[in-house]
């Protein structure tokens, strides 16, 4: 099913290998385009940075979020155990002290880990905007190659003519228009 409304989204160019793509990315960014995406079948080192992704992407980097959430969750888990065992319904068990804090650690750890994993996963999906089933780049007929051996660069908006020339000049195999 085609999209109901059609309009112009941008351009997409296919390159033969990652180097060509990388140089094209640099070139296009030099001309001031910011809304571009490089599509490669595997992670190409440096490519993401070239498209404007910063490795330690600010405060909301996946690992940091994971750590933070994990620590908070662990604290909550410990607090819950302590509260329930010491405050809410203290009962003597096996002659052990009410606040058997070493026994609370495994769950504290588990809950921390669990939440940090969830946080990492969710952060990744959210920052990648990921359940995103419709995207204009899929309107490109050959885009399937991006998951095998195709290296693509899609640029949104901008001055179509100039950009197309630039991409040709960077050695694109072809440059095509992307509809909305």
């Amino acid at each position: 099913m085609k999209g109901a409304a059609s309009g112009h989204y941008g351009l997409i160019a296919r390159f033969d290998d990652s180097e060509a793509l990388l140089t094209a990315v640099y070139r296009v960014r030099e001309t001031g385009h910011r809304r571009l995406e490089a599509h490669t079948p595997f992670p190409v080192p440096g490519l993401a940075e070239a498209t404007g992704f910063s490795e330690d992407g600010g405060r909301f980097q996946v690992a940091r979020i994971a750590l933070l959430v994990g620590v908070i969750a662990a604290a909550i888990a410990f607090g819950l155990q302590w509260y329930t065992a010491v405050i809410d319904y203290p009962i003597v068990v096996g002659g052990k002290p009410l606040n058997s804090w070493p026994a609370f650690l495994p769950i504290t750890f588990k809950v921390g880990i669990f939440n940090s994993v969830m946080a990492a996963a969710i952060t990744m999906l959210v920052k990648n905007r990921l359940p995103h089933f419709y995207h204009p780049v899929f309107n490109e007929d050959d885009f399937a190659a991006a998951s095998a051996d195709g290296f693509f660069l899609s640029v949104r908006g901008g001055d179509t003519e100039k950009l197309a020339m630039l991409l040709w000049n960077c050695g694109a195999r072809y440059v095509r228009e992307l509809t909305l």
Partner: protein
Amino acid sequence: MPQIFHPRVNGLTRILLAGGALAIVAFACVAWFLNRSPYSTGQGAVPEQPVPFSHQHHVGGLGIDCRYCHTGVDRSRFAGLPDTHTCMSCHSQLWTEAQMLAPVRESLKEDRPLRWMRVHRLPDFVYFDHRAHVTRGIGCESCHGRVDRMPLMSQAAPMTMQWCLDCHRNPQKALRAPDRITAMGAPAASDPNALLRRYRIHTDRMTECVTCHR
């Protein structure tokens, strides 16, 4: 590769995700609420009794003491229900013709007991003891509500374990003087802690499992 999905799917996805999250929260809330609602505690339900016996009339109106009929409250774990004889103590003279009391008279005549529907029903694994409460200053009203205002008996308190524990952790608010146990609408005791000492209530023991479960 052609597009697989319609653009609207993106929005739909978001709605579904949000809806899913919301549904989980809603389910949790509903479950929480329902668990404590009269629907599952049985509060307020009025089972149909063989005789529409009105506590409002007998207790609120006539001022008969609870123990006249529930003779076991201060002697046994089980409060006891009046035998037919107890009803007939008065109704051999009052309303001797009333159709409404026909089952009572039948019962006496045929030596067949009345079968009252249970209103308060703890699970069998809970061992509640009326005597332990009634002789230690907990009045009927604390658990059964304003019986003197109930035309037909219904359960007033949730009777969940949490409800029991609320009082067992802090019984002061419910204590009464010994002569006020069966009184309805009695004001709270002025010095609950004195009563606590007077009744020698073991607040430390009262939340132990074995107090109520065996």
